[in-house]
C-alpha cells in the first residue's frame, strides 16, 4: 500500500529541505481521507450503533428513532437476560445437535459416493448430474418439497404403508423427534452432493502414479483408498467439513418453509430464533445484544484457532 500511495524516494537534497516531502505526504493523506471515511462508516458505525442499542430497552414499537434509545438505557440488562434465556440456549443446542447429526451423515455418504465414482461405477456421467441436482435447488423450494413429502397423506406415508400398514397415520412434522429427523433427512438430501463434489475433486487430484505403484505393490482397493487416497486428501476433507459446519449452523430457509421451527420449538435453529425475536417480537435491542455476543464469541474462537494453526506451522 505505502509503495503506491507515497511518493517515490526522493533525491538527497530534497530530503534535506524536507518541505516538499512534507507537502507531498499531506497530499497523500488528504487523498486517502474519503476512502477512510467510507470504511469507518461501513464497518465502525453499524458496530457502534449495535453496541449502543444493545445497552437499552429500545424497540421500534416505542415510536422513538434509534438515536433516542439512550432514554431507556439499561446498561447490561440485555446481556444478563440472554445468559438465562432458555429460548436462545435451546436453539443453540438444537442447532449444534443438528450440525453434529447432519454433517457426519453427509460426509460419510459423500465419501462413499466419491469412492464409488473414483473407482468407476456404471453410468457415471448420468449419475453424476443426477447426484448434483439437489444442490442446485433453492433451499426454500427443497424445504417445500420435503414439507409435502412428510405430510400425513404424503408420498412417504403412502410408500411406507405398503411395507408397514400401520405407519399410514404418522404425521412426521407434528412430532418433535420425527420433525427433527425429517429436517435432518432434507438437509442430508440437499447437501450430500456438495460433500461428494468436493471429496471427489480431492480424490481426482491424487496422483495416478501413486495409486498404480500401490497396486503393483499388491494393495487392494480398500488398502489403496485408506492408505493412499484418504490421507492425501486430509485438507480437502477439512475444507468440506468446515464449509458444511458453517453453512449448517446458519440453516434457516429450509426450516422456515418445512416446519417454521415447530412443532413448538423442536426444530428452531439459532437463525430462526433470531428471526422470530426480530420480526415477530420486534425486540431489536435484545437481538443486538445477541449479535454482539456472537461476534465476540466467534472472534475469540477464531483467534484461538489461528494461534493453533500458527503454532502447528511453526513446528
Amino acid at each position: 500500500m505505502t509503495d503506491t500511495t507515497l511518493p517515490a524516494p526522493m533525491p538527497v537534497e530534497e530530503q534535506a529541505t524536507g518541505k516538499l516531502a512534507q507537502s507531498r505526504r499531506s497530499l497523500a493523506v488528504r487523498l486517502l481521507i474519503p476512502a477512510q471515511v467510507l470504511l469507518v462508516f461501513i464497518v465502525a458505525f453499524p458496530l457502534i450503533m449495535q453496541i449502543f442499542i444493545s445497552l437499552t430497552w429500545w424497540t421500534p414499537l416505542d415510536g422513538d428513532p434509534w438515536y433516542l434509545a439512550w432514554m431507556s438505557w439499561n446498561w447490561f440488562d440485555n446481556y444478563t437476560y440472554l445468559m438465562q434465556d432458555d429460548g436462545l440456549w435451546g436453539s443453540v443446542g438444537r442447532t449444534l445437535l443438528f450440525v453434529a447429526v447432519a454433517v457426519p451423515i453427509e460426509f460419510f455418504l459423500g465419501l462413499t459416493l466419491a469412492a464409488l465414482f473414483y473407482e468407476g461405477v456404471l453410468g457415471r456421467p448420468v449419475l453424476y448430474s443426477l447426484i448434483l441436482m439437489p444442490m442446485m435447488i433453492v433451499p426454500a423450494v427443497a424445504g417445500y418439497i420435503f414439507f409435502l413429502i412428510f405430510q400425513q397423506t404424503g408420498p412417504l406415508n403412502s410408500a411406507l404403508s405398503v411395507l408397514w400398514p400401520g405407519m399410514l397415520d404418522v404425521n412426521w412434522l407434528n412430532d418433535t423427534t420425527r420433525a427433527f429427523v425429517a429436517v435432518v433427512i432434507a438437509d442430508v438430501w440437499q447437501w450430500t452432493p456438495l460433500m461428494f463434489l468436493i471429496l471427489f475433486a480431492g480424490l481426482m487430484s491424487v496422483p495416478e502414479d501413486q495409486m498404480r505403484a500401490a497396486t503393483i505393490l499388491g494393495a487392494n482397493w480398500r488398502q489403496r483408498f485408506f492408505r493412499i487416497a484418504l490421507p492425501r486428501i486430509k485438507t480437502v476433507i477439512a475444507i468440506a467439513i468446515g464449509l458444511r459446519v458453517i453453512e449448517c449452523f446458519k440453516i434457516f430457509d429450509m426450516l422456515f418453509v418445512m416446519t417454521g421451527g415447530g412443532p413448538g420449538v423442536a426444530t428452531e435453529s439459532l437463525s430462526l430464533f433470531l428471526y422470530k425475536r426480530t420480526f415477530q417480537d420486534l425486540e431489536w435491542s435484545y437481538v443486538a445484544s445477541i449479535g454482539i455476543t456472537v461476534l465476540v464469541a466467534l472472534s475469540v474462537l477464531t483467534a484461538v484457532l489461528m494461534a493453533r494453526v500458527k503454532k502447528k506451522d511453526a513446528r
Partner: protein
Amino acid sequence: MASVTLEGTSKKFGDFIAVRNMNLAIKDAEFVAILGPSGCGKSTTMNMIAGIEDVSAGTIRFDGTDVTNVPMKKRGVGFVFQNYAIFTHLSVRKNLAFGLEVRGEEQAEIDRRVGEMAEFMELSHRIDAPSVSLSVNELQKLAIGRSAIVEPSIFLLDEPLSNLDSAFRERMRSDLRQLQRSLNQTMIYVTHDQIEAMGLADRIAVMDHATLQQFDTPENIYSRPENTFVAGFIGAPSMNLVRVRIAERGGAMFADLAGREADAVALDERLARQARASGAAALTFGFRPEHLRISDQPGNGSLAAQVVLVELVGRRKHVHFSTGQTGFVGSFDRGVSLRPGEAAHVSIDLRKSHLFDPETGLRLRLGEED
C-alpha cells in the same frame, strides 16, 4: 527371478498402433534396456509387461507361464516410475513397509526386512524422515527399495535417471548396475538415452515407430546395426549414411558417393560380394565417424574432401567434410589439425562399414557371420 517372453504382442489405442507385433525373449537375470526415441512405444511395452496396459494381441509369458490376463497386482513385478511415485505423505520407513503391510506380513518380519532394505539402500540414517524431505538420489533409492523389498521376480524401470542432472546420472548408472548384480533379478529398463542403454544393459531392444528394430548386445547394436534406423540412432555423432551408385570398373567394385565417379570408394571383398549379391545399382553406404582416417597425401582408395566445420567435443574433434555433392562427419582425436576450408584426404575403414538396401533400410548380409 524369471524370464520374460513377448510373443506377437501388440497394443492399439483406437486406430493408433502403439506397439506392433513385438517378439522379445528376455532371459532370467538379464538386464535389458528398451531404447528408442519419444513415442516409439517403449513405455507402452513396459506397461504391458507390468500389466498397467492390456494387451491388444499376442501373449506375455513369465518363465513360460502365460500372464497376459493376470492383473497387475498379481504379476509380481517391481515397477520404478519415472517420477518415482513415492507416497509423499508417508515416512521413508512406511514407504518401504507398504508392500509388506498390504500383504499382511507379521510386524516383526516387516521391521526386519525394512531394516535390511534401508541398510542395503543406504537409507538407514533417514529411515524416519518424511519422504518429502529426501533428495533426488535418495528418492530413487527409496523407489527401488520399496519395489525390491517384496522380492519381485522382474524389475521394471521407467527412465529412472531422466530426472537427474548429468553428473549425478553417471554415478546412479553405476549404482544401478551394481544393484542389479546384487539383486540378481531380471531388469527391464526403458530409456531414450543411448549412453545409458549402452553402459548398463546386457542386451538392448531398439524400438522405433511401434516396432522392434533390433534386439542384441550393445556391441552388436553398435558394430552390426540391423538397419539404417539403428545405424543412425546409435552413436554420437551417428553413422554416416550416404547414397552411393554401385559400379564395376576393371573387375573391381566401386561405390560412387552421390553417383560421382570422382568420389569413388573401392569396395573390399566382403562389401563387393554383398553389393554383387544384391544386384542393386544404388545402395546406402554406412560408415561410422570413428572409422575415418585422414592424410595430407592422396592414398590408396582415399577420398578428396573439404573441411566445412570443426567441432570440439570433449577429447574428440568432430569434423564435417564435403565432397561437393555429399557430406559426412568424421570423429578424430583432438590432436588432429584441420581447419575449415582445408582440403583433406579421407580413407574409410571398410571392414567396419556396411551397405544397406535403400528401399527397406536393411543391412546387406551374406551369412550369419556378417
